[in-house]
């Protein structure tokens, strides 16, 4: 009787060896690359979408990394996960596509700690401003457009404290590193979202919301990333995206594996798949992101390479102030953002 009960308990709590649980940015588990992987490996991929890197961190911490195998961490996140002891080292010998990566994505500093690799870099891109071309006829070119009074009540902006860095690029003089801000600079930056708040209709949490807001004609301009542009276009709206001219922040996503993952080998296979040709081309089609696999990039047409910033990866990448780990993030950035947007 007891044995039966134990068996039932065990069966309900144990995760099957054929399930891969991911924490992802929306779009990273699209059927285009998920289904072939599931079929080839006879497994199920169960994604959990998160709206911000903070959410991803919270999800990993809560369960001590046991509930998830992998997380698609942007460049600000892996260090926090590493410090919390939640990451497993990547065994690159098991990655068949690893050598096809551009050199700069093999062991970048945001996923390399103590000379060991803790992530597999698969995509990158800038923060963009997107707008409805039917409502806005003169093309906005700068982040300032989100602070323009003529769009009062029709602006949506991301509710994520790391955006402070993007706002910091509006400061005069512009900080060399928008992630290293002095207290004085932080106080100055705070004014910008405070000024913006009366103009904002909604602070959005999940990328999918933005497409909804555009579709219901609630907003005409927002910030986001390329996946959101494609989603909004899929909702039959004519939106255009623009990289802010003042300078732009961005993100570089890596697949990190949880130290307490149930399926380390399967996780490596997924990472390998996503940096492989099919996965990478899939990413360009589903999300319009820049990719990290040299060979896959070479298969694209020159126009497409131009669009995706792959003609000169090093130069294009260097233009973007990639999100990075900020030691004072919880202590200074989060309260500042909350005060500016909620107080």
């Amino acid at each position, binding site marked *: 009787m007891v044995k039966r009960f134990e068996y039932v308990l065990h069966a309900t709590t144990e995760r099957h060896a054929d399930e891969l649980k991911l924490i992802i940015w929306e779009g990273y588990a699209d059927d285009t690359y998920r289904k072939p992987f599931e079929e080839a490996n006879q497994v199920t991929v169960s994604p959990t979408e998160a709206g*911000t890197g*903070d*959410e991803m*961190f*919270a999800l990993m*911490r809560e369960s001590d990394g046991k509930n998830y195998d992998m997380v698609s961490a942007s460049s600000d996140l892996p260090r*926090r996960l590493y*410090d*919390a002891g939640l990451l497993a080292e990547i065994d690159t010998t098991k990655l068949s596509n690893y050598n096809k990566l551009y050199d700069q994505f093999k062991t970048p500093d945001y996923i390399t700690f103590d000379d060991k690799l803790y992530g597999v870099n698969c995509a990158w891109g800038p923060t963009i401003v997107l707008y409805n071309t039917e409502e806005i006829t003169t093309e906005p070119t700068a982040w300032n457009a989100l602070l323009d009074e003529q769009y009062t*009540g029709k602006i949506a902006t991301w509710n994520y404290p790391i955006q402070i860095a993007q706002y910091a690029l509006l400061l005069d003089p512009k900080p060399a590193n928008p992630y290293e801000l002095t207290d004085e600079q932080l106080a100055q930056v705070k004014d910008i979202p405070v000024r913006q*708040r*009366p103009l*904002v*209709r*909604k*602070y959005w*949490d999940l990328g999918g919301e933005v497409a909804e807001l555009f579709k*219901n*004609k*609630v907003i005409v301009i927002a910030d986001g990333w390329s996946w959101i542009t494609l989603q909004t276009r899929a909702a039959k709206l004519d939106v255009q995206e623009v990289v802010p001219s003042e300078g732009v922040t961005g993100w570089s996503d890596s697949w990190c594996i949880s130290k307490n993952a149930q399926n380390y080998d399967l996780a490596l296979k997924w990472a390998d798949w996503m940096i492989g040709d099919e996965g990478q081309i899939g990413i360009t089609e589903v999300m319009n992101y820049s990719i990290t696999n040299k060979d896959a990039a070479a298969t694209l047409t020159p126009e497409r390479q131009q669009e995706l910033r792959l003609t000169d990866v090093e130069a294009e990448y260097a233009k973007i102030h990639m999100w990075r780990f900020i*030691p004072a993030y*919880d*202590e200074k950035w*989060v*309260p500042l953002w*909350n*005060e500016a*947007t*909620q*107080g």
Partner: protein
Amino acid sequence: MANIATEAGDASSSSSGGRRDRSALILLAGPLGWMTVFYLVPLSILLVHSIWSVEYPEIDHTPTLANFRTFFTTSLYPTILLRTVTMAALVTAGAMVLGYPLAYFLAKRVRRHRELLLMLVVFPLWSSYLVRVFAWKSLLGTSGILNTFLVWSGIVQEPLTVLLYSKWAMYITFLHVWLPFMILPLYTVLDRLPGTLLEASADLGAQGWRTFVRIVLPLSLPGLLAGSLSVFSLTMGDYITPTLLGGPGDQLIGKIVADQFGVANNWPLGATLIIPVLIIISLALFVSSLAGAMERRA
């Protein structure tokens, strides 16, 4: 003979009284034990976090009052707390105004189909709370039913944007989802109110309003307070509705607390923020019990 009988009667009643007390205690032990283990203990563990602090990335267990200092010195938290209390009070007032007539009507005026109408009041509770909130989101949007009607009928020229992502949207939604919690206790109490009292009052010459103020209202106070307490505390703690339907600057304390335990990774501060909420609700409970919410009225 009669003496012996009464003596015997007394003896047996006192011993059975003792047995009743003991059985009462034994019966209570279960629920009390449950409450202690699954409510009081976790709550205490939670509250003790307020004297700790966060030393990235772990929690530092040396006692400190820093969080309380942060609460009082950062304008954000008292502002949001005030915003939350105001919203909760307004929603409670609105629920009273809307719920009382309905409960009175159901209890005193409806003879046939009373159970059916009662069920209709409870019916929304059968659907998920989230579904109802999303329903309001689509109802109140610029292309939603309400705005479409307003524009079509000519009442307004352009769709009203203030209906969504605003305090109004939150207020309407809160009222709608919490109204059954106000109606039901009120109905229960009003139902038990003897109709003969009202007739007697009328016979003695009291007009409808006087009867209401002098007789119905005081006797229905326990129900009114119980309903108000429910609506008030439900609104105090809510964070889904402000997140989905509120605009910038409309967030309530619930979300801030939830953020501390989630994305902001600052459990000590989150625990500290809970304390004012607990105090406010305890005060409300105390005032209500003074006014008789806890008593059983015949």
